[in-house]
């Protein structure tokens, strides 16, 4: 099986937020929860870059390691998923996550965060059969079961956000860097996968 990854080419991202909108629509994400977001660094200054960020589906995922009830699991595609039936809403995954991916439906006072929600790489979750209404209601769409990649990357207008087998998207990025002559780095890869794309 492939090792699925996300890669955001910061030199291409135009901060259109279409990935955020696509994610919200594809997964019917509730109000206040953003599985994906676009952060702009050096806004208005030289070297301004926008990066679309969601769960990076890390190697040795910090969220999974710190979860007190062990509710996380990794699929054959190396997508990090979790069970909302087991989640107790303690908020530890948010402290450990290097990318701020875990989201909670409630404001965290008195420990009432509700069940954590995060990017599933459009892979659904452990409730019901793949692609079932029950699964969609809890975790959102399961495009991977249909052989499709996450919608955020699929509809990125500048093809800044890439999803797919880590080897293949790294190769696409390498070719881009060679052609344009500069490299902003593959944001988050060092932290998530302990590697960078060498050109």
């Amino acid at each position, binding site marked *: 099986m492939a090792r699925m990854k996300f890669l955001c080419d910061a030199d291409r991202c135009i901060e259109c*937020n279409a990935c955020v909108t696509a994610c919200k629509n594809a997964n019917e994400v509730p109000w206040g929860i953003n599985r994906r977001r676009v*952060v702009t*660094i050096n806004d208005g200054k030289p070297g301004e870059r926008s990066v679309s*960020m969601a769960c990076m589906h890390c190697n040795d995922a910090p969220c999974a390691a710190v*979860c007190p*009830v062990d509710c996380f699991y990794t699929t054959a595609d190396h997508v990090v998923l979790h069970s909302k039936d087991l989640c107790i809403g*303690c908020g530890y995954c948010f402290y450990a996550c*290097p990318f701020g991916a875990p989201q909670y439906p409630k404001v965290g006072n*008195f420990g009432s965060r509700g069940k954590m929600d995060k990017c599933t790489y459009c892979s659904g979750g452990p409730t019901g059969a793949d692609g079932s209404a029950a699964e969609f209601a809890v975790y959102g769409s399961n495009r991977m079961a249909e052989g499709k990649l996450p919608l955020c990357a699929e509809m990125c207008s500048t093809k800044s956000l890439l999803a797919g087998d880590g080897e293949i998207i790294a190769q696409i990025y390498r070719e881009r860097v060679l052609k344009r002559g500069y490299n902003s780095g593959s*944001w988050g890869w060092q932290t998530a996968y302990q590697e960078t794309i060498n050109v």
Partner: protein
Amino acid sequence: MSKLGMLTRLALLAMLAIPAAHAQPAPATPPSSVRLDAPTTGFDPDSVEVHQTEELDKNRLVTGSITLPDSRAATLIQPDGRIWRDYRRGPLLWITAAVVLGMIALLGLFYAIKGEIKIDGGRGIATLLRFSAFERFMHWVTAASWCILAISGLNIVAGRVTLLPLIGNDAFSTLSTWLKYSHNFLAFPFTMGVILMLLVWVRHNIPNKVDVAWFKAGGGFIGHGHPPAGKFNGGQKAVFWIVVLGGGGLAVTGLGLMFPFYVTNVFGMQIIQVVHGGIALAMIAAMLGHIYIGSVGMEGALDAMNSGDVDLGWAKAHHSLWVEEELAKATRPQPSPAE
């Protein structure tokens, strides 16, 4: 010549020069104002390389601006999350096991050697009121909530590697949910209890020379004989200050965890969690000792918090100065109330 004029001329020259330069090596290409040698991927000669490693060197977090109303979402990368993970997964478990199990083993060993510390000459008939009903109430409110807080806290730290394999994921999640709510809500009676104990008992707990002598004599635990002590001996004063300062620290850091991100960012939340856990662990060790000596470790000690009336012989042995004070008070003629 004006500046504008110069710029216009330069621009015109450039426009003429580009097709001209290409006309010779590639005469077959149609005339165009587009630079054909430039990459078609949007090469920008003014572009600045922005690397995440440099951004991370500047700060522990890469933070930018975001259109969402949630300021936490503006943090793009915080690699320290991995450090916190490594602490929580490794050292925290070992430190917890060492402190809790080590303390229990130590107390077991102490009990095996010393046994229950008996009242010299056995229980007498006379008793003396040591703690009023209110004092006992505030002690037990604090103690009961503390026990649940400690158990639920230990469950969050180590339940996954101890209890979860025994009872399975579903049962463990249900249990942990209830323990989490208990932890959040019992924090308030615990805090109130600590504040009450501070107010009621602080005047008896100011360290003095008697305590120094008490500690020098080994508190009566080592060897025989009982060093003099007031209402609270040196060891009890230590317990009092551990509870007040430790409990206060737990309350403050606990509020920080209960209202996440109100006062700090994600890095601060990690620090608060580590501090909360550290204080809690130290307090668990101290309280195990306190529970031991207040129950199986010493004959007659539990009476003080149970009925409130302690054996006079016990009181004379452990709190000689306090007994003298109380007896002096009792023999002093009481002012008769106005009728």
